């Protein structure tokens, strides 16, 4: 059974001609695609958030101008302030996401170092 599996692995290993030049061209295209996608996503997030904040601030301003009582004025001012402060929330959200990723990256680095060390310290098979 083990021999058959080994033979099977070897048979599946036999490859077609992997075109290295084509692979490099494709890699460049893919990396460029990734860069464009990142840029597109960043632009999209920025514009959505910017327009949302601007809309809230605009609505707050118009509401404040048209408010007739103190309570209404206060509510519209709060609405305006939320729109204005959302820019800070956006930065906070960005910070949270990146801190999480950086923390995970650091943990992986430690895991990698441990794995490398344990590989070095492992007794040889001879």
């Amino acid at each position, binding site marked *: 059974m083990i021999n058959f599996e080994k033979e*099977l*692995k070897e048979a599946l290993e036999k490859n077609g001609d992997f*075109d290295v030049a084509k*692979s490099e061209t*494709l890699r460049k295209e*893919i*990396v460029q695609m990734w860069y464009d996608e990142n840029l597109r996503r960043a632009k999209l997030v920025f514009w959505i958030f910017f327009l949302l904040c601007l809309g809230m601030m605009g609505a707050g301003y118009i509401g404040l101008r048209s408010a007739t009582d103190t309570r209404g004025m206060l509510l519209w001012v709060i609405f305006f302030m939320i729109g204005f402060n959302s820019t800070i929330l956006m930065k906070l959200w960005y910070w949270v996401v*990146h801190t999480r990723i950086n923390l995970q990256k650091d943990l992986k680095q430690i895991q*990698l170092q441990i794995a490398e060390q344990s590989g070095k310290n492992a007794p040889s098979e001879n």
Partner: protein
Amino acid sequence: MRKSRTQIYDELLILKCQASEKAAFEELVERWEKRLWHYAYKVTGSDSAAWDIVQETWVGIIKGIRKLADVAVFPSWAFRILNNKCADWLRKQHLQSRIDSELSKGAQNESDARQDIDVTSELLPAAITELSSEQRILLMLRYHEDFDIGQMAEIIGVPEGTVKSRLNRTINQLRQMMERHQND
């Protein structure tokens, strides 16, 4: 189960990609490109189709890599995308071959061509090419990519029991084919 250094390094690369590091993404592509291409090539049997499928797979990976919450599942996730792309290609080919056979009844199809392979020179690789694409997918995932049954079920999108039974059936069929060829 303890992870190998390669696995941990891949996970680190994916995290770096999520943090928008271009060099990390380039390295990830470099590390995975050949593996993905090999799988696509074995399943489709066509060099150009394999390249197209790999490119489409990377487009899928680019779109989803940021949403990948658990970086440890990257191999099975990437292979699920690849497998779906391969399945799409095979469906198109199947449709095309049906249209072609309708147009010219005498035309020899791909599976006939496969059977012309000299089975005496390389028995096992030739027997593998005679299997259906679904069976080749199972063998590639299990014996080339070393996925376990659970991961295979996730990639193909069927229950684990089904994967086990299909894999057993494929191996038995492969053995029978080889015995038959040896007798011939």
